[in-house]
């Protein structure tokens, strides 16, 4: 189930809210009841979209719960070797499940091409959210083995940590150590509910009002042959995609953080206005923070981080970015996209650092944004040659620099792009500080219900589907 669906907004959310607050908070005031309600809701939420793969998730939960307890027992009894073996088993199991469902087709295809053979792999659809929940499980297992956290003895709490529906299918990746206490002790207050609900509405608006509409502009551009595409159209297209992917992804995080907060959870922020970054390094401190911090904690630092000699640090960085690329999908363009960032970050760290400091801040931001947009071309193209072709068009190797189509595309979507740009930069926050004497809280309070109604309008109008019997 996705948040921007009628099923979620009309059925799932109201029932879950009523059950949680009436039964969990008002009638029983019992954390076990509250957790049970949330777990049931989360399992239904997942099964609604993955009626078969929920079995995989349940197996994963059981396996990791048991092996986690076993690791803890072994460590207590001094069976260090046994703990290590169990730990390796757990890591292998989790990565194997992820690898099998996500990468086996890709590996078989490329290995086949390399050897001139044909490997038949079952064409399995990717279980929704497996990349996210596998990383959550890994954070638990690794921290448990390293003694950073205590073992989770309650299967209910453990299952809830893995399957908690707000962040289950699209993040943020919540580390176990950050949420450990909240699983057994958290407080729901009207204030948190209000902050959470308004955050949810903001996220839903980002997704439905901005991401989807911007996305349709990019799809039209993408559907045009390169020979008929001007540089102007290509830039309008990639600007729209750049905004779309931010609103889509950060909107989802907002909804997750908001929903979590309504139920008393505190998740860390996942995005901090990434498009105002002044360097690529800065961009990755602002974009999908929970993923980069996961790789930092569980790959980069264990590899030695930056406390090693320069060649080794460069190697470590390339490993991390190769994996980051691969995490986004089993395709060459994602790998190239990861390597692209690895190279840019290494260049910034070792070659350009001193020089960049002399460049005016505004220019640095513009350069960073352009580099990020070129990255999105790699990310969004169906194949590598499409990506290169698109970049070619952006620099005039298509139907010239300007044409009427480009002008039409720009003028008919200009308002949307400007609204998008306004929302993607912290302009509103700065404005608010400047006009502090005026209290905007009433305007804001009125805005949330209105935004929600707009969301309904956009969600429903997307399903408008006239039947035209008459062929033209």
């Amino acid at each position: 189930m996705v948040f921007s669906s009628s099923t979620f907004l009309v059925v799932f959310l109201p029932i879950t809210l009523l059950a949680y607050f009436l039964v969990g908070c008002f009638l029983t005031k019992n954390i076990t009841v509250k957790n049970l309600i949330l777990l049931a809701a989360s399992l239904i939420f997942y099964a609604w979209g993955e009626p078969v793969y929920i079995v995989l998730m349940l197996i994963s939960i059981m396996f990791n719960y048991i092996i986690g307890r076993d690791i803890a027992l072994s460590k207590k009894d001094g069976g260090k070797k046994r703990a290590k073996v169990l730990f390796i088993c757990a890591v292998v199991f989790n990565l194997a499940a992820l690898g099998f469902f996500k990468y086996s087709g890709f590996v078989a295809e490329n290995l086949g091409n390399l050897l001139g053979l044909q490997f038949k792999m079952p064409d399995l659809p990717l279980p929704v959210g497996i990349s996210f929940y596998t990383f959550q499980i890994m954070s638990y297992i690794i921290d448990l083995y390293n003694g950073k956290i205590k073992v989770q003895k309650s299967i209910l709490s453990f299952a809830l940590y893995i399957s908690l529906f707000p962040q289950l299918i699209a993040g943020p990746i919540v580390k176990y150590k950050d949420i450990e206490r909240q699983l057994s002790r958290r407080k729901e207050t009207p204030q948190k509910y209000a902050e959470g609900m308004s955050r949810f509405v903001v996220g839903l608006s980002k997704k439905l009002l901005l991401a989807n509409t911007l996305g349709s502009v990019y799809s039209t551009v993408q559907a045009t042959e390169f020979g008929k595409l001007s540089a102007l159209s290509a830039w309008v297209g990639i600007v729209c995609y750049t905004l779309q992917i931010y609103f889509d992804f950060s909107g989802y995080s907002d909804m997750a953080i908001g929903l979590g907060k309504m139920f008393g959870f505190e998740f860390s922020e996942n995005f901090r206005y990434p498009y105002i970054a002044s360097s690529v390094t800065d961009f990755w401190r602002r974009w999908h923070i929970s993923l980069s911090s996961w790789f930092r904690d569980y790959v980069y630092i264990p590899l030695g981080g930056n406390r090693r000699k320069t060649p080794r640090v460069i190697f470590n960085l390339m490993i991390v970015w190769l994996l980051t690329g691969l995490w986004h999908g089993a395709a060459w363009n994602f790998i190239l996209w990861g390597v692209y960032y690895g190279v840019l970050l290494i260049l910034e760290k070792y070659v350009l650092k001193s020089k960049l400091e002399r460049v005016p801040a505004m220019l640095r931001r513009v350069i960073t944004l352009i580099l990020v947009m070129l990255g999105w071309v790699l990310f969004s193209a169906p194949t590598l040659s499409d990506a290169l072709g698109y970049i070619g068009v952006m620099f005039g190797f298509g139907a010239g620099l300007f044409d009427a189509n480009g002008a039409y595309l720009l003028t008919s979507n200009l308002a949307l792009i400007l609204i998008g740009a306004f929302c993607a930069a912290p302009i509103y926050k700065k404005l608010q500080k400047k006009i502090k004497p005026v209290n905007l809280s009433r305007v804001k309070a009125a805005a949330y219900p209105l935004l929600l109604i707009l969301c309904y309008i956009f969600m429903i109008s997307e399903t408008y589907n006239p039947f035209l019997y008459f062929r033209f």
Partner: protein
Amino acid sequence: MSKIKIIFQKTKSPRREERRNLVISSLAVTAVILIISLLTLFGADREFSENENRYLAQKPSASPSSVADGRFMEDSEKYLSDQFFSRDIMVQARTSIDIFLGKKEENGVYIGKEGFLFEKPSAYDEERVSKTAGVINSICEKHPKIKSYIAAAPNSSEILKAFLPLNAPDENQSEQIKKLYSKLRGITKIDLFSPLNAQKEKEELYYRTDHHWTAKAAKLAFDTIAGSMKLDLSKTKYRTIAVTNSFQGTMASSSGLFSAKDTIFITVPEPEIKCVASYPDEKKKRPSIFDSSKLKTNSKYEVFLGGNFSEIIIDTTAKSDRTLLLIKDSYANCVVPMLTPYFKRIAVIDPRYYVGNINETISKENVTDILWLYNTNTLLSDTSIFDKLA
């Protein structure tokens, strides 16, 4: 009194007021969610949507297999969104917002000036056009004694270019048709662009909400075609009658913009010519080439000929020994009544639905004239001429 004092004191701190407003706001949001949910779940389900011209999804029932393969979940989502509270109003609201934000098209329909909605013009595809031209040529060659004519009607985006949205990508249909005509041999090529262009300022040649031309444009086209075919117009007058003024056509449905309404006129010959139309596929005969029952439906343009059929044989009371084979798309439907005084029989074929053998039909019916009447978009984009008639 003291209570009021407390509230008054509370509002003194802006931080506190902000927090309180946010809580009130979140309660309002929750109320909206619950109310919309109740209205959607417990409102009466509609069966049919007039605007979308289709049956709406009804409450799905769950079975182990439909749950396991996810069909039940998909159907539930369709059901909820189809039966969503005030669905039609929401779609209307969306198009208004889009237009307010400067969007110039909706679901592939251009939103033009003065309420005109335009079908996007088809691009010229050399391979497709050559194939179409090849088939037209081969039919002419096979029947050298029969007179052949082709008339390609311009679409509204060509004649009413001035009403298109600013910078909207369009095509030069006049050039497209010139290129197509240059590939044809042994056929009289009729130019409909000039007569329509000459009259475009004086008459309403196209519907605002539909992709067809009006009976007025069709009459101009008919006069031109009659000239080429040397029909004797002296004994017939034409009368134009309005049959409905609440027509909202294909462009309105596609775009979801139902702001304007059109009037459908029909143009009929005087004195009246009696016709019997037979529909071989439907095994039906009708005493008229109009179907006024369609005026009560959503597809009001189907008042002409009852809609598109693979084959219609029209027998007339005209004093003539000519038989016309009309190969056409729906643009021709409103021209057919004007042709009835000059042919004892008109065989109307729509290649998009046709499964017979065209050459056999030509021999069997003793055809004396063949007229190809199409609008430019169909002629350029449709593949059925070379798929079905070759």
